């Protein structure tokens, strides 16, 4: 089994399964914090998918996207936690 | 042949705006820069107009990338006329604003944004690239959003939200249409599109695309039933802002419609009929609205809607004479509608209200000013030989000559009549009628102003009034101009040749 096939038929489906599971949590909630961490995890797995995809297509360019994702997803989480605290304060 | 002169009216506004941002909060300096800058741009626009008039077409391939690969700027007589008009209206409103806009608004960026708006307008007029046009439209939209809500009073915000929402919807339609256009042709250059669209076999799809453009631009030009944002919002910002909006914003939509529907799409029978039907309803809707509104600026807003109907109707008829009428009307309308709102600004300054029931006595208090305003009002009505009259001849003529356009003619008659009536009624109420006694307490902010300041408010009105008198009395010039533009619009081959630099034989 070549690397590409392995990635395509084994790794990617597993990652997709993982994302779907996390997405399930995102949609189910129940609380907003659950959604936030689900979102965070989805982005993180997204980084993984992009990484695998860049290996598959031999395009290292996509790793740049992975980098940006890694850097900025953090801001989103911080913003959400900020929201939650502020909302509580009110 | 490439000529950098074309983008001078664009760059100048951008440079002025940047300069003004450097002088953030320096109210007095900003006033001077802005007025001088507008003057400069007007000069440049005149230059551009003369150059274009002589040569027919000027092009500038930005970045020196030959069309259709780069972004092309084209100045034909039509666009240079529009730039010229924008320059005139811009200068007038700019002068007016330097006194008519409170210093707070100036401190918070009124002038830079004003120039950005004009920048957007000039860009939209001069670009030869459909996506670039979209971008310019966004400049116009965002600066108008800002101007609309500058100050943040509740009515402004209320109007602003409707304005913003519906205009964004228009942008989406525009973008959708651009997407489809690209999907069909792989090109964005309008001249190139003109050729490539003609080659597409699936005419139905081409027409659908045209329809999408119509919907996008239709919202911006406030045609029925896409006009709602206009009467919701135009009465809310300060008059100077309303003036530039009323004069130019809807017109740029019409400009785009004219461009797109002459260069890229040729209206098929359905589109023509639809345009005429829409025009009819626009005329009527605007007229009905104008009849009942007692707030002057609201009434003017409805009149804007109403008169857009003439323009769209002329486009629907699609003969050279009808297009000439549209152009003539456009020229007249830009000048007069701008002035109309400036006049309302002065009235507001004097009386502190726009409600006609509360207004009155202006004729007795300000006879000379009233006379000046009368010129504006009756130009709008089109009392011959004032400016609004002449284009109607073209439009009526073509309306009668076009088969099955009688309803449009009826609507035009009704619209003309209603305009006459509401303006006369307004004249009777605002100028003739005595001022209601209970309103006497409201102070007149105009009379106590320094003579110089008053002059600053009046001069632009005079300028534009002279312009509209010129349009009326020297109608020959405007008629020649309109006919030339209409001929250009009908025969696009020279335009395409000027842009693409090669001889084109259109099927």
């Amino acid at each position, binding site marked *: 089994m070549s690397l590409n096939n392995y990635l395509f038929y084994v790794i990617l489906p597993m990652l997709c399964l993982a994302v779907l599971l996390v997405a399930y949590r995102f949609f189910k909630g129940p609380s907003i914090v659950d959604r936030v961490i689900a979102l965070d995890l989805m982005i993180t797995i997204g980084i993984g998918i992009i990484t695998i995809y860049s290996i598959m297509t031999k395009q290292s360019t996509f790793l740049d996207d992975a980098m940006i994702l890694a850097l900025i997803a953090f801001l989103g989480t911080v913003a959400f936690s900020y929201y939650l605290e502020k909302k509580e304060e009110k | 042949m490439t000529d950098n002169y074309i983008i001078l009216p664009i760059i100048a506004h951008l440079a002025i705006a940047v300069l003004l941002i450097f002088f953030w909060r320096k109210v007095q300096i900003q006033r001077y820069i802005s007025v001088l800058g507008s003057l400069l741009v007007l000069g440049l626009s005149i230059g551009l107009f003369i150059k274009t008039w002589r040569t027919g077409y000027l092009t500038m391939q930005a970045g020196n990338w030959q069309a259709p690969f780069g972004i092309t700027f084209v100045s034909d007589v039509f666009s240079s006329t529009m730039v010229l008009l924008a320059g005139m209206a811009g200068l007038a409103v700019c002068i007016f604003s330097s006194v008519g806009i409170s210093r707070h608004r100036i401190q918070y960026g009124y002038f830079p944004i004003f120039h950005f708006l004009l920048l957007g307008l000039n860009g939209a007029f001069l670009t030869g690239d459909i996506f670039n046009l979209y971008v310019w439209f966004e400049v116009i939209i965002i600066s108008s959003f800002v101007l609309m809500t500058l100050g943040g009073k509740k009515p402004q915000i209320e109007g602003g939200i409707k304005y913003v929402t*519906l205009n964004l919807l228009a942008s989406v339609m525009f973008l959708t249409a651009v997407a489809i256009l690209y999907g069909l042709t792989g090109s964005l250059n309008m001249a190139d599109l003109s050729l490539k669209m003609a080659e597409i076999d699936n005419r139905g799809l081409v027409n659908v695309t045209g329809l999408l453009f119509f919907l996008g631009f239709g919202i911006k030009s406030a045609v029925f039933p896409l006009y709602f944002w206009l009467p919701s919002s135009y009465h809310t910002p300060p008059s100077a802002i309303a003036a530039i909006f009323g004069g130019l914003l809807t017109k740029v939509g019409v400009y785009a419609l004219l461009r797109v529907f002459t260069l890229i799409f040729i209206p098929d029978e359905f589109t023509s009929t639809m345009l005429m039907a829409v025009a009819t309803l626009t005329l009527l809707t605007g007229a009905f609205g104008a009849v009942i509104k007692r707030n002057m600026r609201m009434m003017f807003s409805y009149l804007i809607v109403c008169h857009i109907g003439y323009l769209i109707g002329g486009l629907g008829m699609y003969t050279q004479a009808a297009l000439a009428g549209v152009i003539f009307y456009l020229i007249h309308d830009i000048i007069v509608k701008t002035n109309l709102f400036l006049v309302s600004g002065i009235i507001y300054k004097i009386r502190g209200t726009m409600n006609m029931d509360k207004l009155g006595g202006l004729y007795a208090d300000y006879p000379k000013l009233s006379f000046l305003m009368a010129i504006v009002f009756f130009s709008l009505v089109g009392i011959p030989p004032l400016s609004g009259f002449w284009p109607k001849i073209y439009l009526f003529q073509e309306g009668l000559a076009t088969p099955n356009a009688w309803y449009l003619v009826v609507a035009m008659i009704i619209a003309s009549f209603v305009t006459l009536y509401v303006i006369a009624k307004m004249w009777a109420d605002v100028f003739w009628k005595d001022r209601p006694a209970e309103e006497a307490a409201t102070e007149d902010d105009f009379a106590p102003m320094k003579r110089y300041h008053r002059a600053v408010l009046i001069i632009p009105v005079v300028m534009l009034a002279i312009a509209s008198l010129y349009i009326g009395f020297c109608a020959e010039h405007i008629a020649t101009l309109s006919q030339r533009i209409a001929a250009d619009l009908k025969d696009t081959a020279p335009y395409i040749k000027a842009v693409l630099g090669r001889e084109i034989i259109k099927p």
Partner: protein
Amino acid sequence: MISAVLSGFLFAMLVLLFGKYVKGKPAVLTTLLPLSLFAYFLGMLPAVQTQPLLFSYRWIPSMGIDLNFKLDGLSLLFSLLITGIGTLVFAYASYYLKGHRYLDRFYCYLSLFMASMLGLVLSDNVMLLFVFWELTSITSFFLIGFNNDDPASRRNSLMALAITGGGGFLLMTGFVLLGTLAGGYSISAMLSSAEMLKGHAWYGWVLFFLFGGAFTKSAQFPFHFWLPGAMKAPTPVSAYLHSATMVKAGVYLLARFTPVLGGHPYWNTTLLIAGAITMLYSAWHAIQRTDLKGILAYSTIAALGTLVFLLGVGTAEAMAAAAVFILVHALYKAALFLVAGILDHETGTRDVTILRGLRKVMLPVAAAGMLAALSSAGLPLTFGFIGKDLIYEATLHAPAYGYILTGIAVLTNILVLYAGFQAGIRPFAGRLPEGFRSVHLPDLRLWVPPLILATLGLLYGMIPALADASLVQPVVQALGAVSPAPLKIWHGFNVVLLLSGVTLAAGFALYFIRMPSARHQLAVDRFASLSPETLVVRSARGFSRFSTWYTNRLHNGNLRSYVHIIIIFITVLLAYKLITGVHLYFDIRTNVAPITVYDLTVFGIILFAIWKTVSTSSRITAVASMSVVGYCICILFVIYSAPDLAMTQFTIDTLTVVLFVLVLFRLPRFLRINDRKVIVRDSIISGLFGVLIAIIALEVMNEPTNKETSRFYAENAYLLAKGKNVVNVMLVDFRGFDTMVEITVLVIAALGVYSLLKLRISSSEKE
């Protein structure tokens, strides 16, 4: 010629600018303008006898509109009336409005009006004519509303403008149509295509529009009612505009176009019927009135009806009669108005039930009034007699229904006679009441003008030849007919004379039997609800109500309903176009990328995220779900080879979330409004819209795309533009201008955000 027309405009400007000098004594000097013009036109008399004079100046040649003037008999007659009566009215007004605050404006309007009227009658180009036509309407508006603090004045001026202005637009349409059919706007040129026009399928429409203009201006039933209302204007104005000149513009128009369009059954029948109804209706009304100006107004309408009626008869005799009657009526009616003005001015009332015996205190005025009244009655030796004779002759010799027509004419004349006597004689007859003892003869500027007019009427009546060759014959010629016979005082004993006798006898009898009384007026007022005026006012109110309903219905302040309407409109149009114009097909098998598991995953998540965005009741969840949609799109961008896009979309989505979060925490929870109906309706609308867009996308995808441009970029990005990331090269070089504009957008947005957050305007500032 052009200077003759323009001098009035110029003068108006001068008056406006140097108004304060006009207000005092020098006011009477304004008379010099009409006087000199009168002299000028008088000098033209001999020249016009043979053939019309043409004057041409270029104005808007590219629209076929030039300053073409033509002085023929018809226009000369009107010009003389305009300037002649103008002279007298200018003089009269200088005393009548002595010391009025706005005397300067008055003269401004008046000279504007005079100039417009001159232009109107001299134009040889329909569009030019229309220009002046509208100017008369608008100056009339200003003159009727001259006493603008009076609400009735304002209302009536509006009414007059509405009717004449509305008619004006019809006329314009007619002219445009005429111009289109005839291939030009020149009236002279139209003469040559008269036959073609009459045979054209649109002849009826031309007439419709033309009559629309003429009837409204000349106050034909049912558009007559603005004219009595117009009497709110100062009396000199009424005399000038609303009796002698402007209202005759419609008649002038009809006369002018008789050679072009006349002679057709449509033409004649319509004019006859309209004229006849107007004559009878207004004559009847005239005798019910007690207000001097009311009486005169209605009798004016009757006269206008008569003129239209005569044009409708259409024979050469009728033309001659019309020509003479124009002059007759102008002379006596203007005189009567001026007299009425004097009475009003001196006694303060215009009520004929009160005014009595004033001959004792103002004999010259009484003389003027009496002469004018007699002329209007058509007593022998007055000009009116000749006029009436001609009318009867014309009706008797009419091609059809001669007796009926004659009957109508006689009846009208009896009533008009009565009305004329009421206005010109009754106030001076009888005993002078105590109250009027102090009344005295006014300044000669007031009483000389009517006297001149009335005397002229007598003069022409005694020596008809004076008017005949120089004035009447050229008119008849201009109307395209050959004058049957010279004017004579005495035709011998014939039916016409008998009719005249009957008219006079009946009229006198009526005068002595029937005293003016407010009761008559009241009797008429009972039918006011059926009068055309009421109908018009009612329908205007209905129109306004409808407008209110329509406008508020559509523009109800509710953003959502706007979006609804817009989207429905878009959907309907697109759907129609797609169904009718596009051959829908799609071949699924060719040229599509296979669907992979990650595609499906992303797609599935997007769907769920969208669902969540729509269905959640928590704002923050909606925002979070929306950002999921955005992130998934990023992944799609990555998968489909757009790394730059993915980056940008991702950063911007995150920033948008941050922005939302910074704003949202203040807001309460979502409103829970679960109106099922609304939701279902909205879903259907938006669903349809989405389906349409999808179909369009599908169809466009089927079309082959031309990749010429993108190939150029691919091949030249590095070689010419020295960059390897083609997208970025496009952004900064190939299409750098877009980027330039794009950052400008951002800058504006930032400025807007800043000012929106920081600026608070106090509501006291008036901008």
